[in-house]
């Protein structure tokens, strides 16, 4: 079959290109009440290349070119191209079928023919099949010697490019709070194409090279990353809508990193973690001077946040104390029970502290030098969207939490936590006071969640018990596991995915939880170490050779997360 690889790839690529040029739908798919917002074109005009058809065209051409150009590790390059093309083709074809009401929409109906989708799917499948027939090659490693300033420059460019890629992906379809009925397929198409691009970069060794460089220049990378985070409001994400979304992602990412200490480092499963966030939120709400608060005092936010963290931490110690006697799954149940008790008790407005079913509404806006955090801000003539100060606050929060996580992980205590996770008996035999350390893990995680909760309450202006239910705990846990246990980028990526995807895919929202459940099962089956695996854990959990993975190459899997989960990491 190996001999067939090249012809298959060539044929597949050509069919993809032809597919991109053919009409895709037998009817004009400018749906329902959105004519002027519709940007997904399914044309009769054969050469009207834009949007996903452009991506397909490029991917098809790339398939052809890579097939003939001498390349090392051709198989991985072409697989990335193939998966990307298949992703784009499938997403759009399925969408037209679903939205257009059947196969007539992509074949022949009312005297109109449209075989673009089917051609592209077949072509991409053939291309991919061909790519799989190529001989396996060792992973390409590029490691040119460069002066440090050149490496800095490359890093800078790489991070900025990544930032732009992310912002472009998120705003694919050009929306800034403006609803577009095709936002889902547009987003997914862009994601597939971007994934293919990153996949190719990974296959030729660029991502590994860059991630190694960023390891070498850790401080510089952190500075650039922070700068990128601060720069987000100045990009196409700089509008109210994305500020809210990114702020929410930030809060959950911070909480997820806290949970990562408990679950990822110390290996203690916590199924009631969101309760600590709730405790932090209620404490901050009560100290915010809100009318419905139990105490009529208003502490400065910083102080209130610290108090919230401390109170949550105390509860963390209390909830964690059964770890002295209870292990494993049983501990998970203790935490689950605690979470359920918290919800019930706060719903019953215990001691008047939680506002019960009325919640604690209208928590006053924070302000800095007289500027409310929800107001918009003008810096150097650039008008920044409202909520930008919250965004910055949350960037600080996330940075703080990352600092705590990173420092603790690389310390005597972090090592002891990992040892407890690996083999508690031996850790104890090696002199680790496991009980104390486990409680410390719970406390630290809870404190961070409490801090995040305090910010959350102010950002949302409400603290209500129904923000802190079991399904939120599960979502957070899923964020940690999806992203990769024990890593910071993992928790951030996980939180981002779990909050961005539902936003981008609102039109499929009825199936949101269905896919969520399915995704958990599939990920555990095919990539239990998460998208960004811990250097240690991936060796332990993965059954495939996944050496040399980095943040970048994991993004690739997204477009094909379900379809190609098995492929991921191969």
């Amino acid at each position, binding site marked *: 079959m190996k001999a067939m690889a090249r012809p298959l790839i060539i044929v597949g690529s050509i069919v993809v290109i032809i597919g991109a040029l053919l009409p895709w739908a037998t009817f004009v798919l400018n749906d329902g009440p959105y004519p002027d917002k519709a940007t997904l074109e399914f044309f009769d005009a054969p050469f009207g290349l834009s949007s996903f058809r452009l991506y397909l065209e490029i991917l098809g051409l790339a398939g052809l070119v890579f097939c003939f150009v001498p390349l090392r590790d051709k198989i991985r390059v072409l697989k990335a191209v193939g998966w990307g093309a298949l992703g784009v083709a499938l997403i759009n074809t399925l969408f037209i079928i679903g939205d257009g009401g059947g196969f007539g929409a992509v074949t022949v109906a009312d005297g109109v023919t449209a075989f673009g989708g089917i051609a592209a799917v077949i072509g991409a499948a053939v291309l991919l099949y061909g790519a799989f027939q190529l001989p396996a090659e060792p992973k390409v490693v590029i490691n040119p010697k460069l002066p440090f300033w050149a490496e800095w420059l490359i890093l800078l460019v790489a991070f900025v490019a990544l930032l732009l890629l992310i912002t472009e992906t998120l705003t694919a379809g050009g929306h800034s709070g403006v609803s577009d009925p095709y936002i889902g397929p547009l987003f997914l198409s862009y994601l597939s194409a971007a994934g293919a691009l990153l996949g190719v970069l990974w296959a030729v060794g660029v991502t590994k090279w860059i991630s190694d460089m960023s390891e070498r220049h850790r401080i510089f990378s952190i500075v650039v990353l922070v700068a990128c985070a601060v720069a987000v409001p100045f990009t196409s994400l700089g509008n109210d809508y994305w500020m809210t979304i990114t702020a929410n992602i930030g809060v959950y990412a911070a909480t997820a990193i806290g949970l990562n200490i408990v679950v990822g480092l110390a290996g203690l499963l916590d199924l009631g973690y969101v309760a600590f966030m709730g405790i932090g939120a209620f404490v901050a709400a009560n100290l915010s001077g809100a009318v419905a608060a139990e105490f009529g005092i208003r502490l400065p936010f910083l102080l209130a946040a610290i108090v919230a963290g401390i109170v949550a931490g105390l509860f963390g110690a209390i909830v964690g104390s059964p770890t002295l006697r209870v292990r494993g799954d049983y501990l*998970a149940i203790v935490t689950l029970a605690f979470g359920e008790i918290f919800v019930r008790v706060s719903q019953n407005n215990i001691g008047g502290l939680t506002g019960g079913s009325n919640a604690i509404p209208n928590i006053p806006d924070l302000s800095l030098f007289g500027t409310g955090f929800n107001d918009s801000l003008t810096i150097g003539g650039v008008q920044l969207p409202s909520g930008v100060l919250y965004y910055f606050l949350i960037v600080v929060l996330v940075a703080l939490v990352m600092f705590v996580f990173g420092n603790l992980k690389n310390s005597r205590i972090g090592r002891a936590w990992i040892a407890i996770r690996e083999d508690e008996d031996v850790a104890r035999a090696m002199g680790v006071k496991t009980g104390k350390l486990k409680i410390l893990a719970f406390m630290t995680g809870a404190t961070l969640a409490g801090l995040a909760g305090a910010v959350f309450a102010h950002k949302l202006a409400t603290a209500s018990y129904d923000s802190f239910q079991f399904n939120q705990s599960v979502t957070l846990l899923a964020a940690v596991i999806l992203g990769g246990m024990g890593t910071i980028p993992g928790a951030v990526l996980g939180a981002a995915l779990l909050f961005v995807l539902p936003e981008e895919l609102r039109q499929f929202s009825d199936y949101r939880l269905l896919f969520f459940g399915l995704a*958990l099962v599939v990920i555990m089956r095919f990539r*239990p170490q998460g998208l960004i695996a811990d250097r240690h854990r991936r060796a332990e959990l993965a059954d495939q050779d996944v050496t040399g993975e980095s943040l970048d190459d994991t993004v690739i899997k997204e477009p094909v997360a379900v379809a190609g989960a098995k492929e991921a990491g191969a």
Partner: protein
Amino acid sequence: MGTLLQQIANGLIFGGLIAMVALGYTMVYGIIQLINFAHGEIFMTGAFGGLAVYSWVLPPAAQQIWYVALPAMLVGGAIVSVVVALLMERFAYRPLRNAPRLAPLITALGVSVFLQELVRIFFPGASSAVPFPNAFITAPLHIGSITIPASGLLMLIVSVVLSIVLETYVNGSRMGRAMRATAQDPDTARLMGINPDRVIVLTFAIGAVLAGVGGVLYGTYIHNVDPYIGFQNGLFAFAAAVLGGIGSIRGAVIGAFVIGLIKNLADIYLPGGTAYDYVWIFILLIAVLVFRPQGLFGEAERVRA
């Protein structure tokens, strides 16, 4: 006094329901040390399976005769539950048999959400509660000063009978011995010629039968079902299994009755009354886990394993 007796009766009925679900938890945990969070959903699909049989399989004439309708629904519910449980075992859990502990637990959570949504989206009318036919004697029974619905009594009796049958089976039959052997040490059991896969499948199937029967009886007792009934009742059942000592059949049943009684007695006697009954159950659960982690009837070694 009347109230107390009535609450005890209610508690026993509720306990009977929880017992049927708890047995599935306890058996699966006993064999493969997996907290099958999705077991509550097996119970839920059983209830919907019974409803489907009633609505779409039974002719209208048969719907009216309870001794035709109810057995048909029970069988239908049990079959649906077993099918779902086996698919779940085969495609979600079996590939993870040797994975780190956390993986199957997360999978279980995923399966749980998936099944809830599947039923909600695809079962007609299930986006909110669906009425469940009263396929049993409707008139309540009056025993002394207490009144109980006939369907409640039926649930209690079925639950106790099934538990006894199960206990006898596990202790007495060849397959039961195989199950116990696998629970003790799967590797040795394999050496002894036992096929652990078959034992595990059987365990899931037995748990599913009980849950399916429980689901249908629950429907007849409560009169309506929704896709979320599995979660809370599953949680109670899990608490019962832990309370009784997970892995122990007798323990799960007794734990279930304890939970049923506490929930109903907390309504009258404990501070907070009906608003806090749920809280008391979980406080009890935590207390048991902390002070007697092996549960009321579990064996101490189990915990360390």
